[in-house]
């Protein structure tokens, strides 16, 4: 019988530790265990066999670290490991009831944005291992010891793309039930269930006792078979050897307790031996087996956050959507990601739980932008995202690299649309927004909408998407064209709850299109919709009346424990004032006396922007203001910094203030051609991931009128050179923080000299010195941001 047919139906057992056993066989420190598949196959075979003999049904191949970062012959090593494990199984006489598991451990690299490994590269790394294991005849893929759910996702995607074998994933949590990346048990389970793995569990980290409470949490939230593989306690060194402190008897006693919680597959990890496993099997196999229980909770997750869609309504921020938003449109066209990030952070601050991300504009490459926007937004916020697009390629690329289980906006009742969207949701997982409209248009009545919703639920069934992961849109449309529309929408929302026990969503503000004082209608409509069971409200969380409705509703409906959220938000509320601007008020009144120059010198960002606006409003020319107020003020701070009377934080605050003032100018001149002193490339060189210094230089250069092409960090020489050639750049600024990366700085300079002679190179960073800079052939060394500005001035003024 195949493993998939047995998982969750009977007790199954994994193997135990390998590291300490191999050390006992003479594995040297620093020697990679996987090399033994080729050099000492007999030892590996006897290790594998000892677990088959002990009673394990699932025995891992010796391939935990067999990835291309450590080996250049991955397929050979993996295939040998599978063959050895098959032979061991045969020798043990277990061909009929035991399985060879292609063991996949973490790459040892952290994924972007935390580390430097791109998601799709990680998928390739895992695919190479799994493909070799599959071709050699492995029975199941075991992805284990993952401390980052994103890396686990990459491995699962790889497994599913390479083969149809069952996939088991076990993660490493700490005692508080958190992954290294901050994710919890529930969110990780939701993501992995969405990815359609076959079993989910926990391994390594600590012994069975500490694992018990985490196993308990797993049982509460997981609908799939659960795997528990603890260590034999904690390691310590005894006479030069590593030993673990939990013996087989104690180990199996605690495992018996864990078994009774309702887990389904049990084994061991570091420090456990065939004796641990055998003793455990003997105790557990006679216990009553409790099959997995389907759970009905709906979660939208990010790598660290987990938002439950249920009784308490959820706020989805609508601000990252270019429809009707000129500034966002401009930002998207100019690839100004910072603007998008600012919008994301503002909405988080205002109380959004999930952020909608729609980057569709006819003149941009939407799939590329969707990928970039998701990656960048997830690098600054924990909030889960709602991927909002009608472009199927953008949807797929977004879902693929998304870190967590996203919301998807949307599918509708059209046959063709269902066929395009649902397979993606089935593959990557997600909570899917469904619009109850079809080839016949938008039904005017709730009867028509409910009928389409029913068809969508049925379609989801056929794709294996759980109904709990469908959220039906009530389709809010303006009451100014159809006076009955709010009633039809509210009915739909209520019936989704009552007739399907389903979840619902509304783009709330559509209800008032074409009306004056829209927030009045919107906020009351929101309350009515929530009273009718609305699960998710897509709104602008920065709008005071909307959030006032939301918080009041929760307070009134006993969904705000101790009224904490309400009180926190409105403790300074003054009756009679409009709640139309929520959030912190602008800085204190005494700042208003500052002139633009003073505001910049003192680093008061808000006032600097205000003062710039006042100056422009008074009819002054923007260039004149910049030349006579802004630059001299920055110069005074810069000179003070150079003289040692002003310190870096003050310089940075002034830079921030100047940047804010510039933003005002830029906005005022949005339609006019911009005047710049020249274009400069900035990059932190390959291998180096420190970019704070470079970012400071960027802000300063921009403030002094340069157009900066910021290539980011860890930038390969070719990319810098190609960019310099393409844009005919005169000055390139390179940054390196570590001695080890100065070599790639030198390499970059060499390549520049060769391909684009005459380009000036200015270098800086913690390890650089004037001597070093000469040695590697740079034109100039800049000790700080001001020095870079001065150098660029000297090049461009000459």
């Amino acid at each position, binding site marked *: 019988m195949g493993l998939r047919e047995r998982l969750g139906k009977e007790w199954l057992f994994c193997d135990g530790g390998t590291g300490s056993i191999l*050390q006992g066989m*003479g*594995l*040297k*420190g*620093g*020697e990679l265990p996987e090399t033994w598949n080729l050099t000492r196959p007999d030892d590996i075979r006897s290790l594998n066999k000892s677990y088959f003999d002990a009673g394990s049904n699932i025995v891992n191949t010796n391939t935990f670290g067999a990835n291309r970062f450590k080996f250049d012959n991955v397929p050979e090593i993996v295939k040998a490991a599978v063959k050895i494990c098959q032979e061991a199984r045969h020798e043990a006489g277990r061909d009929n009831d035991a399985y060879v598991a292609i063991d996949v451990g*973490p790459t*040892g*690299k*952290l994924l972007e*944005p*935390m*580390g*430097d490994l791109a998601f799709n590269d990680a998928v390739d790394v895992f695919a190479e291992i799994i493909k070799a294991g599959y071709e050699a005849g492995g029975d199941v893929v075991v992805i284990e*010891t993952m*401390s*980052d759910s994103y890396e686990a996702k990459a491995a699962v995607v790889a497994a599913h793309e390479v083969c149809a074998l069952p996939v088991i994933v076990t993660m490493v949590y*700490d005692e*508080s039930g*958190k992954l*290294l*990346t*901050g994710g919890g048990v529930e969110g990780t389970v939701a993501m992995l269930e969405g990815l359609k793995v076959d079993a989910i569990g926990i391994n*390594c980290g600590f012994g069975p006792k500490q694992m018990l409470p985490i196993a308990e949490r797993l049982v509460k939230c997981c609908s799939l078979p659960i795997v528990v593989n603890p260590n034999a306690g904690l390691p310590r*060194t005894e006479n*030069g*050897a*590593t030993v673990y402190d939990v013996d087989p008897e104690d180990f199996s006693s605690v495992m018996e307790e864990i078994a009774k919680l309702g887990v389904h597959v049990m084994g061991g990890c570091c420090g456990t031996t065939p004796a641990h496993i055998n003793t455990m099997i003997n105790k557990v196999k006679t216990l009553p087996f409790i099959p997995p229980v389907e759970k009905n909770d709906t979660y939208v997750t990010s790598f660290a956050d987990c938002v439950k869609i249920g009784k308490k309504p959820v706020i989805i921020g609508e601000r990252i959507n270019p429809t009707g938003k000129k500034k966002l449109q401009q930002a998207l066209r100019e690839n100004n990601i*910072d603007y998008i*990030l*600012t919008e994301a*952070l503002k909405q988080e601050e205002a109380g959004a739980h999930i952020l909608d991300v729609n980057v569709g504009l006819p003149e941009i490459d939407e799939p590329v932008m969707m990928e970039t926007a998701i990656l960048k937004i997830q*690098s*600054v*916020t*924990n909030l889960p995202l709602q991927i909002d697009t009608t472009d199927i390629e953008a949807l797929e690329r977004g879902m693929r690299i998304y870190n967590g289980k996203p919301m998807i906006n949307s599918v509708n009742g059209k046959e063709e649309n269902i066929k395009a969207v649902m397979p993606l949701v089935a593959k990557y997982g997600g909570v899917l927004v469904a619009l109850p409209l079809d080839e016949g248009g938008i039904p005017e009545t709730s009867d028509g909408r409910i009928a389409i919703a029913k068809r969508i639920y049925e379609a989801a069934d056929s794709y294996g998407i759980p109904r709990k992961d469908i959220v039906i849109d009530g389709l809010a449309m303006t009451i100014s064209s159809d006076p009955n529309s709010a009633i039809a929408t509210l009915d739909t929302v209520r019936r989704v709850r009552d007739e399907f026990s389903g979840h619902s969503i509304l783009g709330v503000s559509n209800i008032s299109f074409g009306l004056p004082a829209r927030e009045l209608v919107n906020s009351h409509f929101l309350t009515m919709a929530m009273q009718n069971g609305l699960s998710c409200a897509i709104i602008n969380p920065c709008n005071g009346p909307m959030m006032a409705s939301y918080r009041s509703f929760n307070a009134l409906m006993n969904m705000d424990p101790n009224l904490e959220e309400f009180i926190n938000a409105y403790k300074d509320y003054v009756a009679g004032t409009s709640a139309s601007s929520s959030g912190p008020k602008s800085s204190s009144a005494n700042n208003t006396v500052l002139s633009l120059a003073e505001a910049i010198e003192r*680093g008061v*960002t808000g006032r600097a922007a205000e003062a710039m606006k006042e100056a422009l409003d008074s009819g002054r020319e923007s260039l004149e203001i910049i030349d006579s107020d802004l630059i001299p003020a920055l110069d005074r701070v810069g000179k003070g910094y150079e003289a040692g009377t002003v*310190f*870096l*934080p*003050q310089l*940075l*605050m002034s*830079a*921030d203030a100047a940047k804010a003032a510039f933003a005002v100018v830029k906005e005022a001149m949005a339609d006019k051609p911009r005047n710049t002193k020249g274009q400069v490339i900035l990059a932190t060189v390959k*291998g*180096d*991931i*420190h970019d*704070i210094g470079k*970012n*400071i230089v960027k*802000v300063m250069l921009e403030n002094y009128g340069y157009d900066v092409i910021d290539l980011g960090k860890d930038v390969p020489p070719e990319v810098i050179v190609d960019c310099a050639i393409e844009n005919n750049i005169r000055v390139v600024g390179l940054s390196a923080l*570590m*001695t*080890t*990366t100065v070599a790639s700085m030198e390499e970059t300079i060499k390549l520049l000299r060769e391909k684009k002679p005459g380009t000036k190179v200015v270098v800086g960073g913690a390890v650089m*010195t004037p001597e070093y800079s000469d040695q590697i052939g740079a034109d100039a060394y800049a000790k700080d941001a001001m020095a870079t500005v001065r150098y660029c001035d000297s090049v461009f003024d000459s």
Partner: protein
Amino acid sequence: MPLEVEIPLKEIQRYMGYRGITDIAPEMQEKIRKAADQVSIQSHPRIISREYRITVSEKTVVIHADNEDVTLESESLVRNLSGCCGALLLAATIGPACDMLVRRAGVTSAAEASIYQAAGAAAIEAFLDDYNEKLKTSYEARGLFLRPRFSPGYGDLKLEHQKDWFRLLDITKQIGIELTDSLLMVPTKSVTAVIGIGISRERTGCAGCAGCNKHATCEFSKERD
């Protein structure tokens, strides 16, 4: 699991580049306090350490691990560990959240990013100092004395030896720090170090900042205020 150790605000200021300055504007002090709070709340410190026998000779220190001997060539380390027969190797991180706080702050303000950067650096040091203090007490109870922490990259101990730390302690698997190809650690607020264990209280060798080859140019020296 927050940091559970107070981050000294003065240290944050030092990492920010304030040297010998006391009249920091109240708004800035407020920002620093806020950054310290956030870093503290969102940190998730993890640490791993193991004790090894070592042999210190004229120019090298040899660490005797389970199945291998690791040789570190470094005169500054020899000075730091002279008289020791054992050492603790350790690695610690406050986790990835601080890196995100820096990125978040950087979206709108270079100044705030630098404050978070400094707060993170001060946080991992404070966490280690606290851990160090506890170690010191427990070792002294056994009549043993600890030397100051020493990290790969200090003095003439090559950064290359990061690889030894990562292999011996299995750092990536145990506490989730990655060592990049260029020998940097991610999360960035992470530390690897060795602490010598000696039988005398005598503090030989370590001359503190003054003994460092970057002493003349270091922006962060504790002794140039």
